[in-house]
């Protein structure tokens, strides 16, 4: 059941291209995230769905209806802004009820719906407060309620949590997901925070430089990145360019060091260059005797990240990260010391691009 469809969307501002050949279909009730670095065109795409930008070419279709040229105030699409954008001159209730007032609903109906929305976001008590009397997190909840009050067919959120501090961000994230599932509303969520995208979404669209890099559910995106960009951006994959040594046995080498790859190198030729990726948590210090994928390394740096310790090391001439759990029994090497690390041949990924 296709709900929202974006076909061959292009957008350029003068000479610079912001979005290029963007194709996506979103199902009814699906939660889709746009994930990518700053300036990759997430906001621009979202604004084209909301109607604030006109695509240079391509079409936006919602429920089979072509929206491309429909003005934004006729779209019935709810939007939540990074900066909350509550109307400062209106109370919480007036803000939430504004869309209904515009639609010409009766006073009673507005009142009822506003109460309903406020209890949905658990802010009943803030009915007649002004935005300046609310914290950032509360303001963003109200903004969410305001967008939902008009019962939009689609909910768009542009980095709604990035102006908030970490703890509130986490809480509100759960809240957004809960409300979205309760209402079953189709949602597009823009973020540059991979954790947010991974924990919230049904599907993730990873973007870079105006183009889609990969579309998939969080599991696929995290575990099977298709391009070097996705691998780098989602998680902190180690990537290295290697040369195919033996396609049949799945052996490649970098800096003169051989690597065994369980998934093999089918379809590659000897001497061809491939991009290899290894997750930092898949490395281990060498404990028992092993033959394959044992590397000599020099420890460059050690960082504590709370429950995880990140060890930066040099294998050959390439820098790799290794993450290990921070157990009290953990024996850390000295910086500058020589160690041996290993990783399973199943942990070595071959990327497409």
């Amino acid at each position, binding site marked *: 059941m296709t709900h929202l469809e974006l076909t061959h969307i292009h957008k350029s501002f003068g000479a610079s291209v912001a979005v290029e050949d963007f194709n996506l279909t979103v199902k009814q009730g699906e939660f889709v995230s746009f994930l990518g670095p700053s300036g990759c065109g997430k906001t621009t795409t979202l604004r084209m769905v909301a109607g604030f930008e006109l695509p240079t070419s391509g079409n936006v279709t919602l429920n089979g209806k072509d929206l491309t040229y429909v003005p934004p105030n006729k779209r019935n699409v709810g939007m939540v802004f990074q*900066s909350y954008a509550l*109307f400062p001159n209106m109370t919480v209730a007036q803000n939430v009820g504004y869309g209904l007032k515009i639609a010409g609903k009766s006073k009673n109906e507005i009142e009822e719906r506003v109460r309903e929305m406020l209890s949905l976001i658990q802010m009943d008590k803030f009915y007649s407060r002004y935005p300046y009397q609310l914290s950032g997190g509360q303001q963003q909840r109200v903004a969410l309620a305001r967008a939902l009050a008009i019962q939009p067919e689609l909910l768009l959120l542009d980095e709604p949590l990035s102006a908030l501090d970490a703890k509130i961000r986490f809480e509100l994230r759960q809240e957004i997901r809960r409300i979205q599932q309760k209402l079953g509303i189709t949602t597009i969520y823009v973020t540059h925070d991979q954790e947010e995208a991974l924990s919230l979404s049904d599907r993730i669209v990873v973007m870079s430089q105006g183009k889609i890099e990969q579309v998939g559910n969080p599991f696929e995106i995290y575990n099977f990145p298709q391009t070097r960009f996705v691998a780098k951006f989602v998680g902190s994959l180690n990537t290295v360019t290697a040369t195919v040594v033996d396609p049949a046995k799945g052996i490649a080498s970098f800096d003169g060091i051989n690597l065994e790859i369980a998934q093999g190198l089918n379809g590659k030729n000897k001497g061809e260059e491939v991009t290899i990726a290894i997750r930092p948590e898949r490395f281990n210090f060498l404990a028992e005797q092993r033959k394959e994928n044992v590397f000599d390394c020099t420890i460059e740096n050690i960082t504590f990240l709370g429950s995880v310790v990140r060890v930066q090391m040099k294998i050959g001439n390439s820098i790799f990260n290794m993450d290990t759990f921070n157990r009290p029994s953990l024996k850390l090497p000295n910086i500058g010391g020589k160690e041996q690390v290993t990783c399973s041949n199943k942990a070595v990924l071959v990327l497409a691009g």
Partner: protein
Amino acid sequence: MSQMFATRQRKLWREYPLWNWVGLFPFFIFIVFFLVFPSLRLFTGAFTNQEGGLTLDNLKVFENPNVLKAYIMSLQVSAITAFVGGFFGFLVAYSITQGGAPRWMRNVISTFSGLAANFGGVPLAFSFIATIGQTGIITAMLKKACFNLENYGALAQFLASGGVNVSDITNVCPLNPYTYGFSLYSLSGLVLAYTYFQFPLMILTITPALEGLKKEWYEASTNLGATPAKYWRDVALPVLMPSILGASLLLFGNAFGAYATARALTGGSIPLVSIYIGQQIRGDVLGNPNEGYALAFGMVAIMTLTIVAYSLLQRRATRWMKS
């Protein structure tokens, strides 16, 4: 020794924080002498007679039709220029902040607003005399744009058929303001001249507020279905209202008290309260110096009323703001 004194002093300050105000005394003394005393003098002068007894007789000056006329004229000039200058200034400020005016235009206008708001007084009057006075450059140009109705046969015939005596209007100069009763030395002239410093003042005061209008508010309201007109009614105007009120007060007061421009423009012949008071200072035209005080007192009273009205409106308009 001085160490001990300093310690004692600090202790004193800590126990009696009001002592800190002592540091502001030089300023307050200056203010008392040169602002408070003169104001009190006006006030007492307005309500005492020449022998020093308390009286309300001085207020009889407001029964003088010339005085009343001057007050009405002053109020008219202030209200009209505040409105015209304010409206025009608002539109210009909107154009340069939100309307996407070219960058050079924005720069020139904002620079000139700073200058023109300071170009007041006597030189401004001279400029308007030289430009749009009877022999001014622009007047001369506008006077040249004339035509003879006789050369426009069809129109002349049409008018003649309507009973107009065509031979009366052989030389029509539709652009010449003087044919419409304009005079630089009257209300219309004052309005034209005052607007020169009023509208840049509006631009200067309202621009920061306009720049504070967030693009997202417009987008959010549009997203909720509002048209641009509804956005203005429901969001932009209410948000701008405190600044608009403040600017209006500033413009009104600015014109109400203006003296130099009017004086130099009309040589003191136009009946404005400020001009009247000037004459009163120079030599008592009213014959009773205390009536001069009453006259001045009336001006202060009007400004006070304006400010009270302003603050009441402002309180309503700023309910949603952090105090």
